Structures are given as C-alpha cells and as structure tokens.
C-alpha cells in the first residue's frame, strides 16, 4: 500500500479511537438524558486547552492527563445541576440551552486563553517503524491509551454497580426508581461522565491538533455521525462507527479534498437516519 495512504489510514485509526471516546460521552448523555448536547464539541476543546495550559505551566503532560478528566467530572456535574436539570422538562428546548452553553464556553476560552491557535510539542518524541513507514510514537501511544480507556469504560459499565445502575436507568427509568436506584444522582453522574470523556479525548488529542477556541465546532458533527450511524443506544456500534468513519475519511482524503470527504460522510449519515434510524449495526436499544 502507498505509504502516504497508509499513514492517513493510521491517522484515521488514531483519531477514530479518540473520537470514539468523545462520541461515547455524547451517546450516554443523549441516551439517558435525552439531551442533544450542542456543547459537547466544546467540552473536547476545553480538554485540549486544559491539556496545553497545564502541561505548559507545570511542565508535565502526564499531570494534565490526570487532572483534566477530573475537571471534566466536576464541570459536568455542575452543568447538569445548574443548567440541564432545570430545563430538562422543556425537552425540545434543551438543544437551545446547550447551544447557549456552547456560546458561553467558546467565549470564555476566547477571553482567557485568547483567540490565537497554538500547538504543543508531543510529550513522547520520536517515531517507530510501522508497516514500512516511520510513524509518530506519540500517536501510537495515544491510540493505545484511548483503546485502554474505551475498554475501561465498557468494563465500568458492565461490571460495576454504578455502571449497571446507569444501564438500568437508560433502559427503564421507572423500573429503576422502583428498584431503589437513585435516578437523579445517576443522571447527574452520567452527564458528568460524558463530559469527562470529552475532556479526556481533548487532552489526549492536544499534542496532535491545533488548540484554539473553535476546535469544538468541527468535532461535534463528527461525534453525532458516529452516534447516529452506530445506532443510538448501541455503544459498541458508536465505537465501531467512529473508527470506521475516521479511517474512511482519512483514506478518502488521499484522493479527494477533505471537504468532499466530509460531504460524503454527511450524506451517508442522512441515509442512515432516513433508512435505518436505529443505526447500521443491530443491537440498538432505542
């Protein structure tokens, strides 16, 4: 295979794994709270900004990797309590609230971090020979780390008590309440977790992307594509879709410009929405 194309494909895989993390966050929020979080891409952006700022000021990227998701948890919990919960009863308007939130987040970053895009140096330097090309070591590490986080997420969801509670509430909130599960707290936690995952994706991605207040705008549609094509409620499907879309887009970009590739993905997403609204893969619960 052509080296250039191979590099693009692997780039796609790396991005796909990171996006999968973010998209999962979007999916559990959409699935459990029935909220379209227009600010989710901006959560990712916050992760990149947080990553860069903490890494630069403390000198340690690893510290950023640890702290940023924790900030995400707190931020998500706060937002759920202050903004989401009071407006959830106007279900069709939560998209408006989160749009307002998106405005606030972007503007706050623009005001403090500034409008200038910045790049940070990779915490792991060097390349590694892979299938005949020299590939960025950090990207490989990022891919592996994201994959580990994904695995951890599914383990959490399927093997822990809280994870089971989340799945129960998603499946049937009324029965869950009857069983004594603290639905309000689980809802808040789910939003916090989804937020944290977006920020985690952001900090992982910080060394391989431009860090500026507008990065969220591009990421949001991509996450939605993964969620819809993978099937709402089908978490494994979302992961598969994210990886598939990213790799495909990466490959297609080698012979077509990125905009056309994006149009093709969007058209594909429309087709899925119209023809198979439960997503491409079976196993969707909604």
């Amino acid at each position, binding site marked *: 295979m052509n080296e250039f194309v191979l590099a693009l494909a692997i780039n796609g895989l790396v991005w796909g794994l990171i996006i999968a993390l973010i998209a999962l966050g979007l999916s559990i929020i959409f699935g459990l709270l029935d909220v379209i979080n227009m600010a989710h891409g901006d959560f990712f952006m916050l992760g990149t900004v947080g990553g860069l700022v903490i890494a630069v000021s403390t000198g340690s990227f690893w510290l950023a990797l640890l702290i940023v998701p924790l900030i995400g948890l707190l931020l998500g919990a706060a937002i759920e309590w202050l*903004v989401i919960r009071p407006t959830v009863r*106007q279900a069709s*308007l939560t998209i408006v609230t989160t749009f307002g939130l998106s*405005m*606030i987040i972007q503007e706050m970053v623009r005001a403090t971090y500034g409008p200038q895009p910045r790049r940070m140096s990779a915490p792991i330097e060097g390349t590694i020979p892979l299938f005949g090309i020299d590939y960025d070591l950090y990207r490989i590490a990022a891919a592996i780390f994201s994959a580990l986080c994904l695995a951890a997420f599914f383990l959490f969801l399927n093997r822990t008590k809280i994870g089971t509670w989340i799945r129960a509430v998603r499946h049937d909130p009324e029965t869950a309440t009857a069983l004594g599960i603290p639905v309000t707290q689980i809802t808040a936690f789910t939003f916090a977790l989804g937020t944290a995952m977006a920020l985690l994706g952001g900090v992982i991605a910080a060394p391989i992307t431009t860090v500026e207040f507008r990065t969220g705008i591009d990421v949001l549609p991509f996450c939605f594509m993964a969620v819809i094509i993978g099937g709402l409620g089908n978490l494994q499907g979302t992961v598969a879709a994210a990886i598939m879309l990213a790799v495909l887009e990466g490959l297609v970009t080698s012979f077509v410009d990125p905009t056309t590739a994006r*149009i093709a993905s969007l058209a594909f997403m*429309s087709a899925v929405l119209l023809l198979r609204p439960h997503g491409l893969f079976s196993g969707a619960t909604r």
Partner: protein
Amino acid sequence: MTLARARLICLAVFVLALLAVPYVLPAFGATFWVNIVAEILIWSLLAASVNLLLGFTGLLSFGQALYFGFGMYGVALSINNWDVGFLPALVIGIAAASAMAFVTGIFAVRLTWHYFAIITVVFSLIFYFAAMSTKWLTGGDDGLSFSPPPVIEIGDFSLTLADTTAQYYVILVIVAVAFALKALVVNSPLGLNFKAVRENDRRAALIGINVFRTRLAAFVIAGALAGTSGALFAFFGRYASASYMFYHVSGEAIVWAVVGGSGALLGPLFGTGALIVFRELASNFWENYLLAVGAITILVVMFAPRGIAGAWNDMLLALTARGGRSATTAIATAEPAGDAPDHAPTRSNADG
C-alpha cells in the same frame, strides 16, 4: 378595555414607530441605527421561520440557514449571471429557498423529535460545505458581491437601495407583508392543522389530518420566510457569502425565536430586536458580550420559556383582566412551548 383592543393599540403604536424610524432616529443623531433597525427586520424573518416551525408546528429545525443561503444566493447569482431586476431576483431567491425546503422537507419531515433537528443540521452542513468548496460559483467564504438593481424604475424616476431611507422602507414593506401573510396562514385552517399536529399528532391523524403533508407545508412556508430573509440580506449587504449557511446562524435564529417568544406571531421581531440591539450596545464596551447572550439564552429557557412576547401578553392580560375567571386560569395554565392564544377570549365588554 378588552385584551384584544389593547393588543391592537400596541400593534398600531409599534407599526407607527417602525414607520417613523428614518425620520426620528436621525433627529437624535443616530442615523447609523436606521440600518440596524433594517438589519433587525431582515433577520427577524429568519427567526420567524424558526418560530413558525417550533412554536406553531412543534418542529425544531436547526438548519434554517440553508434556506437563508438559497435566498441569498438566488438573488446574488441571478443578478450577477442573468442581470435581472430587483423584483425578479427577489422572487427567484424566495422560490429557490422554497423549492429547496420542499425537496429536503420530504425527507426531513418523516423524522420527529431529535432526529428531525439532527437531519436539518446535517442537510444544512452538506450544502454549507458544498458552497464552501465551489468557490467558482459561490465565492466560498469571501462571498460574491453584486450591484443591486434599482427597485422601481418608471421613466425618469427610480427608487434605489443606495438611499438609506428608501432602502429602509423597501425592507419594511417586504417584511411587513411577510409577517402579514404569516399571520393569515397561522390563523387559517392550515394554521389550525399546524397547531393540532403540534399538540397531539396521533389525535391529528385520527381526525383525518395528513400529518406528513401538514408538516411539509409548514416546512416549505418556513423555507420561504428564511429565503426572503436571505434575499433581503443579499440586497442589504450587496453580497452573499457561504459563511452565513453555517449551523451557527441557524442556532442564533433559534435563540432569537425563543427569546422573543416561540409561540407568538411577533415574537421573532422582539427577540431579534432585543438581541441585536444588545449586541450593538454591549459590543462597544465589552468584547466578550457573547457570554451574556449565552447566559440570556439559558435563563430565558429556564425562567421565561414563553419569551418576551409571552411576558408582554401576560402583562397586558393582567392590566385588562376583568372577570371571566375560567378563561384567565385557562390561559395561565397554557403550555409554555405552545402559543399564547392568538385570539382574545370572550369577556364581558364592560367598557371601551
């Protein structure tokens, strides 16, 4: 006085104020503001298109910028390539937007709830990217400029947009006609169908309403409103740019519609007016005024979901209420996302 009469008087005052703008504002040394009001009028039609779908039909479209774009480019391209006059260009713009709304609506309207919102964004993104990448046609981000033809040309007399006052009145007339037509539709049998579908689409089907066609009709009319907004915008700015087709524009229109009052006929005017005026005033001394806009959005949804128009109606109701307790309670318990009743309840006509 009755609620109906109070509202009529308010409307009359409002219209008179709008008519007086090009003469009154310059007297205060604020000539610049005449153009701002013109801009508000133009954008209010985009908010009106959201309002028609959301408040009256129960559909949240996050992609009205697409039809705005078709209106905008319809004007710019037809003038640049075919050298048409003002009215033909306007008609072409509106027709293009409506046609696009019809074609996309056939697919979009099959979906409901969140899926509808998502697909409207997706459609608008597809065409946004398409417009950005066909720079030769659309000018992409930089846009396409053109010189607007005169509005009317009769013999030696010609009315052009070069004159701020003339331009203002042309815009005012077109926007007023658009709102008047919207008012007619909303209070017509078709409009009643919109509301029935909004309230209970299962019940609507069970009384014989073709829900799909009803929603499609609303979508096309909303597309026409958005297209008119885009067409006027092109004339006003003498240019068209793909960047106005991005979903952020759709989102802003939703914010204007919701802040103004999503169930009320003139809600879009209030919302657009309030937020654009706020933008003009705030951006002078606070660079990050968007923070306030975002906060306002959230606060309105939380505390005043019926928006400015809703609050205004409540105030008028409180001021004019006499007896008719059941009607008062009935209105007070109306769903926020529904409309403020657009006809006054009967009450004893105690005095004039």
